[in-house]
């Protein structure tokens, strides 16, 4: 039968079949934004508030309802993480066909991997990195691991806002691993990250190349250091253009992406503090310096002062010895 339909007609039929049935809801479909392993993300118009939002809905068969439960759990996790660097959830509900959905702020910006072409300045890139660390550290403090941090999951908004997206693979830390208000819960959610590896409970979840070794092995007891590893790979992505990359920065990246989790930064704030110290021209914990290294760094930090004082002393010396007759 299909041989009588053109490819474009087939494509349109597929799109129509994928489109969520929004009848009876306050939303009107505008366009499809993306497709992941278990769900699609659509741009929809909120007809009551007259604004556009993003709607995420399961788009694969979900016989036992496990995916639906995960989607709702994902929405609840994100809703509890109120932070400027995390896309806020607006609403959650069930469509007429029984599929759950949730809506969130529609972010119009560039993914980090696309945005990097607009700035080659290393300091600017490291400041962006620090702003990626903020919401991740916030989530850890509330007992949530992201588990799928990568440049494609970071958005830079039109006003320079940095947003960590796609918490579909997030995992609640076990009690005792975190002290935040959500720490007593324990669950997993799986979402719509293209190219993310998604399998059953307790299996490998994440994106190859950005996953910590223990995450690749499918360890069930992950902690903040798994996200520290992924942040280290993002740092590597950000400094890849810098040639040669400063040794202290390379040392930070190496510590963050150590194969043995015990050798990594224990927390994201520790990693962020080292990067901030590097930006401020101060010493970093990952790169022990000798006395000459410390002296050189001090001179570079205070070079204007040193130049001004040298100019003053030089002028004074010249005036003492070369007095006009």
């Amino acid at each position, binding site marked *: 039968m299909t041989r009588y339909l053109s490819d474009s007609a087939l494509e349109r039929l597929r799109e129509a079949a994928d489109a969520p049935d929004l009848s009876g809801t306050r939303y009107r479909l505008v366009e499809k934004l993306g497709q992941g392993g278990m769900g699609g993300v659509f741009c929809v118009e909120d007809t009551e508030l007259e604004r556009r939002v993003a709607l995420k809905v399961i788009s694969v068969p979900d016989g036992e309802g496990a995916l639906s439960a995960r989607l709702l759990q994902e929405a609840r996790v994100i809703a509890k993480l109120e932070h400027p660097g995390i896309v806020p959830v607006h609403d959650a509900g069930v469509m007429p066909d029984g599929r759950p959905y949730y809506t969130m702020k529609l972010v119009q910006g560039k993914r980090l991997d696309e945005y990097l072409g607009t700035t080659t300045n290393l300091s600017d890139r490291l400041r962006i990195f620090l702003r990626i660390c903020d919401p991740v550290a916030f989530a850890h403090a509330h007992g949530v691991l992201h588990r799928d941090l990568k440049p494609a999951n970071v958005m830079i908004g039109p006003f320079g806002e940095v947003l960590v997206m796609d918490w579909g693979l997030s995992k609640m830390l076990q009690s005792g691993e975190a002290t935040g208000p959500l720490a007593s819960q324990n669950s997993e959610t799986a979402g719509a990250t293209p190219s993310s590896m998604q399998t059953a409970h307790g299996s490998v979840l994440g994106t190859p190349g950005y996953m910590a070794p223990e995450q690749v092995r499918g360890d069930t007891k992950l902690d903040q250091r798994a996200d520290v590893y992924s942040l280290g790979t993002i740092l590597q992505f950000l400094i890849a253009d810098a040639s040669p990359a400063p040794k202290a920065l390379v040392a930070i990246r190496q510590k963050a992406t150590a194969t043995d989790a015990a050798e990594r930064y224990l927390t994201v704030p520790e990693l962020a503090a080292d990067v901030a110290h590097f930006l401020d021209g101060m010493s970093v914990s990952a790169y022990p310096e000798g006395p000459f290294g410390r002296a050189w760094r001090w001179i570079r930090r205070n070079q*204007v*002062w040193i130049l*001004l*004082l040298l*100019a*003053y002393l030089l*002028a*004074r010396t010249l*005036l*003492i010895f070369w*007095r*006009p007759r």
Partner: protein
Amino acid sequence: MNKALIGLLLGGILGVLDGLSAWFTPAVRNQLLGIVLGSTVKGLIAGVLIGFFARKVNSLALGIVFGLAVGLLLAYAVAAMQPGPNHYYFEIMLPGGIVGTIIGYATQRFGEAPQTATR
């Protein structure tokens, strides 16, 4: 510490040190006290002026240029007031300008800017 106070303190300290450097000039060593006092007053005035400028204008480049200008202007006034045929314009204005530049840089880099009033 606010920027005007930083300017005042730095201007005073650099003014004293600048005045004391006259000790290396035997011809004026007997006037050292007056030179130190004059240089200190000059440094204090320059420091306050440059510090207030830094409170109003947040620009490292403009701060340095303003510091240089104030330092040179005050040093010129001091040199012009020197009795006798030799006014030592170059000897007084060169370090005066550098001191003004240092204060201009310091007041832009350090010190608290005034808070915006809110209701």
